[in-house]
């Protein structure tokens, strides 16, 4: 996967750093980086031991990967906006919108599948662009703008479908997603491709850093020649396009569309995966490998508990708790990291002091001795 490679590339310059090598890295730092990956392995191993036949099967992995693809692609969409310091609460509704449009265009309007796919993605992209314009030009906070947009496009979906569910889509739509290649449905490959593209762009192209800069300090970014407004609109638009792709995938997977919003319930799992993912590999930062691991982790925990006989309300409980705990944990990890750095810095200063010639320290002592007692 891109995960380990990506993070290894990130820390490699530090690894060469002699000053850093002298200082053993703290446990908290490592737990922060690889904790989630370790948890994923533990959870998978644990459920596999408990239910070897059902859980530890290729079938289970395949199904989980397939089912998590819309969450992962939706997570990428959310990540784009979070990078610039904005939030997109309309992502799930936007996936639903692409879903109803693709199903409707192919089933009711008789569009050829490729054309319908392009149109559905364009509709979602336009919604994202509109979100960006509202946030940037009308100066509505993204929380409010996208919350309103979510409900608004829900209404658009209902209007377009005349409040009628579409129960069967043409085979060409499902084949595009369900066809199995080397044992995995095509949907999984779409997800991997989206992660690869977004991950590589964010990691290796200047645009990734600029997006982060806009999110971290828009004023500093602007004084460096980056136009924060442009990047915000672009991130909303790209987020919309990704939501559209997720909508296409989900249409193929389900082979149907609900007028009331098929994917609306994905909002929380998506946000849980994104925030939990930001605690891994590069703690405190949104990152693609983290999102992938987090989505799988949450899915395995939910499906494992269901296999053990947990009631169906376990899944929302876990997603909700994961969202809150992930954010709490990442702020804690950042505090710990800052503290760690401070200690290292003080230690570094001690090292330097020790290296400074004895004359200086003798002078310092002398100065201290001049006033050893309070001059009261």
């Amino acid at each position, binding site marked *: 996967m891109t995960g380990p490679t990506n993070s290894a*590339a*990130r*820390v*490699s*310059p*530090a690894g*060469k*750093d002699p*000053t*850093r090598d002298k200082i053993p890295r703290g446990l908290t730092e490592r737990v922060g980086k690889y904790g989630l990956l370790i948890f994923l392995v533990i959870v998978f191993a644990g459920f596999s031991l408990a239910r070897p036949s059902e859980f530890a099967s290729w079938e289970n992995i395949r199904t989980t990967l397939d089912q998590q693809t819309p969450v992962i692609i939706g997570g990428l969409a959310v990540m784009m906006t979070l990078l610039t310091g904005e939030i997109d609460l309309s992502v799930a509704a936007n996936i639903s919108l692409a879903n109803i449009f693709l199903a409707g265009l192919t089933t009711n309007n008789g569009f050829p599948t490729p054309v319908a796919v392009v149109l559905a993605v364009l509709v979602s992209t336009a919604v994202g662009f509109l979100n960006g314009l509202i946030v940037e030009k009308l100066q509505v906070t993204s929380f409010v703008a996208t919350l309103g947009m979510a409900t608004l496009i829900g209404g658009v979906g209902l209007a377009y479908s005349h409040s009628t569910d579409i129960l069967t889509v043409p085979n060409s739509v499902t084949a595009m997603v369900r066809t199995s290649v080397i044992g995995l449905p095509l949907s999984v490959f779409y997800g991997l491709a989206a992660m690869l593209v977004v991950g590589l762009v964010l990691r*290796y*192209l*200047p*645009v990734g*850093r*600029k997006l*982060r*800069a806009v999110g*971290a*300090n828009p*004023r*500093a*970014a*602007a*004084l*460096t*020649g*980056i*136009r924060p407004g442009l990047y915000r609109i672009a991130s909303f638009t790209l987020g919309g396009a990704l939501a559209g792709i997720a909508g296409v995938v989900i249409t193929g997977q389900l082979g149907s569309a609900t007028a009331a919003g098929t994917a609306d319930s994905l909002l929380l799992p998506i946000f849980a995966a994104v925030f939990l993912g930001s605690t891994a590999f590069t703690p*405190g*930062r949104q990152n693609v490998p983290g999102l992938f691991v987090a989505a799988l982790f949450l899915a395995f925990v939910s499906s494992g508990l269901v296999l053990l006989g947990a009631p169906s309300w376990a899944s929302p409980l876990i997603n909700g708790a994961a969202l809150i705990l992930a954010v709490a944990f990442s702020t804690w990890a950042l505090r710990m*990291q*800052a*503290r760690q*750095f*401070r*200690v*290292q*810095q*003080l*230690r*570094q*200063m*001690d090292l*330097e*002091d020790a290296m400074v010639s004895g004359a*200086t320290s003798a*002078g*310092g002592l002398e*100065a*201290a001795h*001049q*006033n*050893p*007692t*309070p*001059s*009261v």
Partner: protein
Amino acid sequence: MSGYLQSDCSSTGSPLAAELAVDAVGLRKVYGPTAALAGVDFQVRAGEIHGLLGENGAGKSTLVRLLAGVERPDGGQLRFFGEQASGGPSGRRRDGLAFIHQDLGLFAQFSVADNIALSSGFRLRGKFIDQAATITRARETVERIGFDCDVTKPVGGLPLADQTLVAVCRALADGARLIVLDEPTAYLEARQVRKVFDLLSGLRSDGVACVLISHRSEDVLRVCDRVTVLRDGRTVARRGARELSEVELIRLITGRADASDSAPRRPPVPDGRPARLLADALRGSGFGPVSFSVHEGEVVGLCGLADAGQFAVGRALVGDISASGGGLTIDGRDLSPSGVRDALGAGIGFVPANRSADGLAGALTAAENMLMSPPGKWWQPLRSSSEGEMCRGLLLKFRVVPPLPDRPVSTFSGGNQQKILLAKWLGFDRRLVILNEPSAGVDVGAKSDIHKQIRSDCENNGTAALVISTDFQEIVDLCDRALVMRRGVIVGELGSLELHPDVLTEMAYGGAV
């Protein structure tokens, strides 16, 4: 060590302890395996103004955290007004301690009276707030220190110095007998600094003690009765302010002979160097018309009081605000920036005055900050290894400790952050750098590093620098030539041989020169 401290403590004796607002002996505080405080003695008498000085990382902020009860000492004695310290921050407040940080913690939209009442309690009539009585009480507090201020005005509309004084009043209304002010004057210009200090001096007669933490040694010497100097977590000196000269004080703070006060008189920059920047009757909101030039390799100061318009000139040069008239040329080519990108493209670098608000993204690493907008085309991938090497080289050159480019900027100390901000522009071959308050709020050592770096860049690479500041001493220390602004226009120019802070001050205030 501890035995010695014990005896020291008992020799201080209980009879004297009563007149001490703070009596700290042998304070130690350890983070992990590191001692942030390795035996600090700190005594403040009731009714005195006491300066606490030291470089960044010397232990001042740790000491303040211990005083404030935010953290507990790992060793040593801490007494307030003769009582053994106990409890946390709220307990300290009840004991009459108040802490005023750089971020004053005021509610900008609320009136002065409401701000004071929010902490010390509103006057009630029955169950409801008695607005008139609340205002009267606030007025009494304000008048107590002779502070002339309309208490019904929102705090956000007051000058920064007055806001600081409102915070002092709030502490007094709260019954504070010891007020600790952390860098109260870092962003104030001379006139406002004087106002704050004058009013603080008035507190002496009330028996209220003040601890003043500041990097401005001349301010400290002017207002304080006594000073304590920390270095590397130890008290290295406790002296009366009168017996100290500024040079001595700086030597105590840095532990080395420092040249920042006795800056060598520079020979004037030779004539005939090509002009890098020419501003001709430049006008904009808040300034103008101004005409001036900056030559290749020259450091020019543009100074004045905080509201003289010099900062607006800088923002107009970089295209952050638009100029309404006049002309600009850089290296002989016309420049009319319609935005920051144009100006940066023409080779200008801009270091804003407020590093945390406008300059650095704290969550990003040092390397990401320095290369926030990486050079090269958008499709060219970033190379983390070569970036890391380059940034590490810059951090070493600018003496950032530790020189780790992959560390978040927020984890560096203030002085190091400022160096990173400067390295972001000075390290990348700019034609002209505009430096707003290049050493605001950094310690003496870092300040001298920063000055050296700016000078060497200009002398060796031919970079032109425009230093925009309200700190006249800094202008004298750093610049070849200074332009003084008042009310939006340039009122005078001083060459290298005439530069003197007093002359600059006089010109800035509009005195005849």
